[in-house]
């Protein structure tokens, strides 16, 4: 089956008064139909920029300097603004980190859902209200009929995110990009929202790109994972294999830095050094300056992907060494 969404050699840079910021330095991955794909990495590695590139919602100073984003046989980067508007919300929807500021404070939840329905389902549909109530019920909001006339500030954080999810589902999209949808919430609420997302994804067979820096969430939620480092893909593949047998030294470092049950705080291993800044031109492997296994070639040449197995790829020169097999 062809993937529903494929990103090929995407490169994004921002022009700033201090020079160009290379936010995405060429990434490739694809999202299989019905999968949840986790996009992980440290802060600033380009997760949100990737999501916004797909939606074509980058800031004004951004430029996609190379690449293709293939969706349903089209390259999204080539669409006109009007064509792209019909994709947004309708075919690909997005959920954001902070539900409190992502909902419009001056409109009721019902009005905001109806706006989405009107935009994609045409106006004059008498069923809009019934449909909206149904959605609110489906995302687990209590008393959905009454929720229609409630304003965002009258809801709790978790309820706001449920309302956001209802909004994103309104036009029945094929793909949802969820950018850290639980980061702003309490831990117990986080679990509920994750459950909800998993259930809706299953019931409606939606494909999801789940942006997070929490590998624990990836383990529970995703089938595929893409590990980003400094605007490049370090490692990607099925979640079980990558979490069980990480190949890239960066992924290993990330996993070692995870708190484990029973471990003390000082058992945590932190990766030494810093992420390269977006202003730097990177020659060789982006992770080389921080890597325990660094070799001469790492500083000279950007590693290509090695196929670990058919679903597991890692970009590291170590895999090319005969000794490492």
């Amino acid at each position, binding site marked *: 089956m062809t993937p529903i969404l494929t990103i090929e050699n995407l490169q994004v840079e921002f022009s700033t008064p201090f020079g160009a910021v290379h936010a995405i330095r060429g990434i490739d991955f694809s999202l299989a139909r019905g999968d949840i794909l986790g996009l992980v990495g440290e802060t600033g590695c380009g997760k949100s920029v990737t999501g916004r590139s797909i939606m074509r919602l980058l800031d004004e100073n951004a430029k996609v300097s190379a690449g293709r984003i293939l969706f349903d046989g089209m390259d999204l980067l080539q669409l006109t603004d009007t064509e792209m*508007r019909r994709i947004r919300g309708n075919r690909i929807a997005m959920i*954001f980190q902070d539900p409190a*500021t992502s*909902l419009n404070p*001056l409109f009721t939840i019902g009005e905001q859902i109806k706006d*989405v329905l009107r935009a994609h389902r045409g106006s004059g549909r008498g069923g809009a209200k019934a449909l909206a109530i149904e959605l609110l019920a489906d995302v687990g909001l209590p008393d959905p009929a009454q929720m229609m006339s409630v304003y965002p500030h009258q809801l709790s954080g978790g309820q706001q995110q449920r309302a956001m999810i209802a909004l994103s589902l309104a036009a029945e999209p094929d793909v949802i990009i969820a950018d850290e949808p639980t980061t702003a919430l309490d831990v117990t609420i986080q679990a509920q929202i994750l459950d909800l997302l998993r259930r809706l994804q299953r019931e409606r067979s939606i494909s999801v790109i789940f942006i997070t820096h929490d590998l624990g969430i990836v383990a529970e939620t995703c089938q595929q994972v893409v590990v980003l480092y400094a605007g490049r893909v370090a490692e990607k593949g099925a979640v079980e294999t990558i979490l069980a047998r990480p190949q890239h030294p960066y992924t290993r470092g990330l996993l070692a830095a995870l708190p484990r049950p029973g471990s003390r705080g000082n058992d945590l291993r932190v990766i030494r050094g810093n992420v390269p800044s977006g202003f730097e031109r990177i020659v060789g492997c982006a992770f080389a300056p921080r890597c325990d296994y660094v070799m001469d070639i790492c500083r000279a040449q950007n590693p290509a992907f090695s196929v670990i197995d058919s679903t597991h790829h890692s970009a590291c020169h170590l895999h090319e060494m005969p000794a490492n097999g």
Partner: protein
Amino acid sequence: MTAITFLLRRLSLSVFVFIGVLILTFFVSRVIPGNPAALYAGARPRPEQVEAIKVKLGLDKPLHEQFLVYVSDLLDGDLGESYHSRRSINTDLSIFLPATLELVIAAVFIALLVGIPIGVLAGAYPKSAFDYATRLVAIAGVSVPSFWLALIAQFIFFSSLGWLPLGGRISRDASLFYPIAAQTGFYLVDAAVSSNWDAFFDALHHLILPALVLSAYPLGVAIRMTQASMIEALAENYITSARAAGLSQRVILFKLALKNAIMPALTVVGLSFAYSITGAFLVETIFSWPGVGKYVTEAVLNVDFPVIIAVTLVVTVVYILVNLAVDLLQALLDPRVRLG
């Protein structure tokens, strides 16, 4: 709290503001040097005439008694009589106030109806040619003196093109052949309710130029305020999520962002409305518009205190009402604003 109780509470608070203004203007006007009785008596009065008038007007009594008399007249709805013309101020204002209100309301409507959409688009497309053109218009509207604008407008639309009349509220022909039955004093309203369409369009014709000239300042303000708050609103997360939901640019700008951005413009234009009641006198003079501005300017030049106090009180009431309307509107637009 409901809108009604909110209104009542705010109105009762406003009574104190009104009383404060009343006390202040009354006593300041009595303390300022001058001889009102001599003014009242006309040219070259004899001293005993002036004394007689002082007694007649109660000016010989102590200040607090004069004040009580004034207040009790006020409570009867009587604003007194002009020392200069000896006419009843109530009668004068019943002519001048509607004339001014009609003019100022028209100007404010033009400013909002034209200025807000322009501000929305200028805020949506910053640094575009439209944005720069708009800035020019806004700055000109705020900074070009109104008398100069008025003269230019008369030159173009009366002298050169002959499209619009030079001044006045209605032409002599219309007032002779289609007299407007006075009810509210608003010509447009009075003509419309009596289906006197000839007079209606004649009055409208006369209203256009002065209203346009008077709208220049609030128009510039409305454009700049709307533009600035649109830029702010458009940077909010809820706009990004609206774009991500595929909503049209029209809905995003004129519904979702504008509702968040409209209040500053409404507030400032509301205040300029109250200011224009007396501030329009240059425009009123140039267009021979029989309004409050002209009326109170003459009163000031003649040191005609009863008129000055009366107009001050009227303007105070307008300020109070405008502020109330702005607060109410804000509460209507924003569910987070609690009435109270």
